Structures are given as structure tokens and as C-alpha cells.
């Protein structure tokens, strides 16, 4: 083994050792395209009209406040039927489904979600007449949920 190869080998070994074990267990972002396909049934997604309020930086992924709003009159002719929240890096990406209707009067839902790491949260709104709106919001998560809870 020459000097150059030794240095390269030891450097890669050091790099692997420097990454803590829990960081290596990070869930990579999954391909959520099949899940979105299942929700929309192949219909086109419009990337406007759905506003998502999420903090840019979440210190703790165990509880991240989230608010979804659709500008909709919520009448029988034009209303939101459902809202879907997808977190591609969570072990189970489909976070929640909310079913609304004209009885809601206002297409707004707020909750608190768990996020396993920094990711782009995908939200989908299904309007009546098989129309879909989509929103992607990036959240930086300093301490991820689901991972460091082994006690």
C-alpha cells in the first residue's frame, strides 16, 4: 500500500466513524409519487391556491404546528372535499387526511405533526369536480421525531 492509498482509505474510514450512529439511521426521503397517484388517480395537480403555514425551522420534530388554508367559497358548487398531508421522510409518509365539505364554511385546518428530519412536506387539497391543488413546504428539523426516543 502506497502513501496515497493509505491516506485515502483512512480518510474514508474516519468520515464514516465521524457520522454518529443515529444520523446514519436517518430515513432517506421516499418516493411518494405512488401515494400521490393513489390520491389523485392521475389527475393534474395545480401548484397554487393551497397555503401551508409551517415554521421554516422546527427545533423539535415531535410537534410541529401546521396550518392548511384553501381560498375557497365552500359552497355546494365549489368546495374542498379533502386535505392530505404527506411527509416523505417519515416512516409512514401519509400523516393525515381531513374530510371537509360545504358544512365547514371555511377550508382551514390546523394541527401538530411529527417530522422525521428536514424535508419538503407535501400537502394536497382535493376540490369537488376532481380538481387537485398541491403545496410543497420545506421545513428544517433540528431534532427529528421517531429516532432518538429509544430511552
Amino acid at each position, binding site marked *: 500500500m502506497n502513501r496515497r492509498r493509505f491516506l485515502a482509505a483512512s480518510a474514508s474510514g474516519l468520515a464514516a466513524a465521524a457520522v454518529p450512529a443515529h444520523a446514519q439511521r436517518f430515513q432517506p426521503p421516499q418516493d411518494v409519487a405512488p401515494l400521490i397517484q393513489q390520491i389523485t388517480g392521475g389527475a393534474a395537480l395545480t401548484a397554487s391556491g393551497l397555503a401551508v403555514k409551517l415554521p421554516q425551522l422546527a427545533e423539535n420534530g415531535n410537534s410541529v404546528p401546521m396550518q392548511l388554508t384553501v381560498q375557497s367559497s365552500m359552497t355546494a358548487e365549489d368546495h374542498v372535499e379533502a386535505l392530505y398531508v404527506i411527509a416523505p421522510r417519515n416512516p409512514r409518509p401519509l400523516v393525515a387526511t381531513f374530510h371537509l365539505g360545504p358544512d365547514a364554511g371555511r377550508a382551514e385546518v390546523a394541527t401538530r405533526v*411529527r417530522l422525521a428530519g428536514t424535508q419538503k412536506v407535501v400537502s394536497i387539497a382535493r376540490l369537488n369536480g376532481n380538481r387537485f391543488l398541491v403545496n410543497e413546504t420545506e421545513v428544517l428539523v433540528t431534532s427529528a421525531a421517531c429516532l432518538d426516543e429509544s430511552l
Partner: protein
Amino acid sequence: MMLGRVQVPQSVKRGEPFEVRVIVQHPMETGFRRDLQGQAIPVNIVDKLACTYGGREVFRTELGTGIAANPYLVFYVVARESGPLEIAWSDDRGQQGRASAMVNVA
């Protein structure tokens, strides 16, 4: 019986949407955690929650493991008549819970 609370404004205007806030006391176990003996803690999630008002279901949700412990929800309902607003939920263990609030339409 599980604990939960639902809150509506003291008085609401007929025909206008009002805010409903719900909180359920529940650990929302994901099934990915282990206890001190290393045994996996089984999944236990409030997976279904529905709101009925004026004899109709006005809101329904299916929650997953991605919802924080003690699930908190805010949504809107159109005020039609004075009466109770009922919330019912159930978890993976089959336990059920209810909470209700009186809606006073001014």
C-alpha cells in the same frame, strides 16, 4: 374512556363559520419505539375522529403516526342552529372517546 376537550366560541352568528378546537389526551404511539426491556411498544394511534353537529357529520379525519402526541385539531363549521357539537374518536386498541360542546347561535 379517553380524555378530550372541544372548545367553541361562546356565541356564534347564524350562517357564519366558527372555529372548533379539539384536543385529545393520547400518547399516539408510533410502533417504532422500544421500552426499557427492548420490547417494541405496539402502535396505538387515534386513527379516526369525527365531528357531528345538527344531525350531520361536518368534519372527519384519519390520522396517522405522523400526528404529534395529544392530537390537537382546529377546523371550522358553519353555525346553523343552537345545539350540541359532538366529537367522537377511536384508537387502534379499540378504545373510544367522546366530547361535546354547546353551540349558541345568536
